[in-house]
């Protein structure tokens, strides 16, 4: 697979039931791959924002954006310029902790990654890490040596820097 770059797309959609289905169904039927998708309310009450990560060639990306635009409930779609965005992902990671030394090692790592310990039990410890996906990948890699019990990741969400925005002017 040559040139399979990851692209981040932001979409402003009608905040109605069924819209997520229309979008994801279109991706499925046209054979586009979603790496991650996050959906939440936007700055406007009746509009929601989707952040979608897609892998593919530039031509595929162009089709993704056009096909999304074609959906009636999708109001605006843009590819975010990778040079000029902030991306974040959050992950909750639950690790097995049997020995006391391990517990303090994990807490040190969490601090290095500017995360937080948000739950402890005699056998487990849960960390919250926020950052780019690479940073979360790196933290997870470290935790593997201790034994990971569960991971929950939010997927990437992103905004352009400065005044450049994907929004609907009222």
């Amino acid at each position: 697979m040559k040139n399979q770059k990851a692209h981040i797309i932001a979409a402003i959609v009608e905040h109605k039931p069924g819209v997520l289905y229309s979008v994801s169904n279109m991706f499925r039927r046209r054979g586009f791959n979603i790496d991650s998708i996050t959906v939440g309310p936007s700055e406007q009450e009746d509009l929601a924002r989707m952040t979608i990560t897609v892998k593919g060639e530039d031509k595929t990306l162009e089709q993704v954006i056009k096909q999304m635009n074609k959906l009636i409930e999708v109001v605006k779609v843009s590819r975010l310029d990778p040079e000029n965005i902030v991306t974040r992902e959050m992950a909750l990671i639950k690790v097995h902790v049997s020995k006391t030394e391990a517990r303090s090692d994990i807490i040190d790592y969490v601090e290095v990654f500017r995360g937080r310990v948000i739950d402890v039990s005699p056998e487990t410890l849960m960390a919250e890490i926020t950052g780019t996906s690479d940073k979360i990948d790196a933290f997870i890699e470290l935790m593997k040596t201790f034994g990971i019990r569960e991971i929950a990741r939010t997927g990437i969400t992103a905004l352009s820097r400065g005044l450049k925005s994907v929004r609907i002017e009222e």
Partner: protein
Amino acid sequence: MNQMANMSGAHALIEALKRQEVKVIFGITGGAIMPVYDVLYDDTDVRHILCRHEQCAAHAADGYARASGKPGICMSTSGPGATNLVTGIANAYMDSSPVIALTGQVSTYAPNSSYMIGRDAFQEADIIGITTPITKYNIQVTKAAEIPKVVKTAFHIATSGRPGPVLIDLPKDVQTNCAEMDFSEKIQLRGYKPQYNPHPLQVEKAAESLVNAEKPLILAGGGVTSSNAFQELLQLAELLMAPVATTLMGKGSFPENHPLSLGNIGMHGTRSANQLILEADVLLAVGTRFSDRSTGNLDSFCPNAKIIHIDIDSAEIGKNVDIDIPIVADAKRTLIAIFGLLLNQLKKRKDSVWSRRVKEVKEQLQNNLPNGEGKGLKPKDLLIELRKILPEDTIVTTEVGQNQMWAALHYQVLKPRTFISSGGLGTMGFGFPAALGAKVACPDRPVLDIAGDGSFIMTEQDLACSVMENIPVTVIVLNNSVLGMPAQWQRLFYNRRYSAVNLGHVPDFVKLAEAYGAKGARVESQEAFSRIVRDALRSDVTTVIDVPISSEENVFPIIPPGRGLNDMAVG
């Protein structure tokens, strides 16, 4: 009626349809749509046509829409009624036809009852989920008061931009609940603004390429019909001296008896169209989506041409073929704009080097299309004869398969919207119900379905509808007693291993027609064919004409699957 009124959802639905000038609904009733049918019982303005299968209702609405250019309406109950519409909706979607489908649905909420959406109630099907990928838009109404606005929105979306089917799902309690209905409410669609006007810079670029073109060729698709751009296409082609090839959906957008007409391109295109498109230096593609059946293998499609693509759907630009000059806009407006620029730069000519080449290729190739090898009546001869018999404004529909490709190759279409065929989905069983819909739209014109036995049998039960509702059409069954196109492929590509294609001589189509109260006739000779067709056109009841042909008959030319337009087999 005032803009505001208190009424039931079912009343509001019919009122809203009338405000959209709906005159006809094709449908079948059932449990979850009965409140609407109860309103229709008293209504004298809207004609309901009782089909015998919901698929036919959807195809009839599609045929109505294509013949008239106005939206066609079909209606069914929930569950199986709605799922039976699905093939017809998918067909309308693939061919960009403005069909409005109304489906009943189980109630959203009924006190002390389990009949609610999402609880797998009797005849519940998630028709919104099912039709999302095959509709331009679909919506389930959750409150009766929303109905006027939903109907307005549905018609706007179905008929504007690139047309397409819209489905409205109506839970039973939404039909029975009363509310203050506001018919004046404006619709708002922030995410839907079709681009009608072409970008002036793109028009200039297109005009410049066309002025400098030595061998321009126009490829006309269904978009020319959707935007009613026939006149504009004709005047531009004549000014450029550019030959016009059509896709199957574009057949009828350019008069096929015109010296510049090449007929269809593609898998079963004419030899001259497939030949000349390879020679063109500028291709002006209008309202086409470059389907695989039209282009053949893309590596050898138009190798030397700069391609200008006009389409109102931006997602079609660059989807299948790389485009040099894209124009996202209405076909008619764009052709007018290009013509306007060219008029100052080009003089009208009698001929050109290119037009002489076109004439030469047409004379060499077009007129010697081979007749099939089989014995007996020849589809080609019959279709050429048919053109002589039928008035110019006759609407011809087709089924799908060999019958359709013979019709596309040999039956000349002279007027817009007089050739109706299932292009994208290739739905066997489409032609007959589509003919019924077309006849309802245009009752004063003859309507004729060119059928095969395999296709016709898929929807023949609506002969009952045609007889009971007085919708006389003519069905010509080119009866080879096999599933002809699969049989042809098996003959050509599968070593004559005829797997599951033999239909026998069953049924007897003459008796079948008579069983429904229609007329039946069997044709044994070319002379009898002409006479019987003429009789059928005058008949006030539907006639089924059984025309036995050889099961060995092939459609030629054919581009073998996966090959390019330069790889045509002619027999």
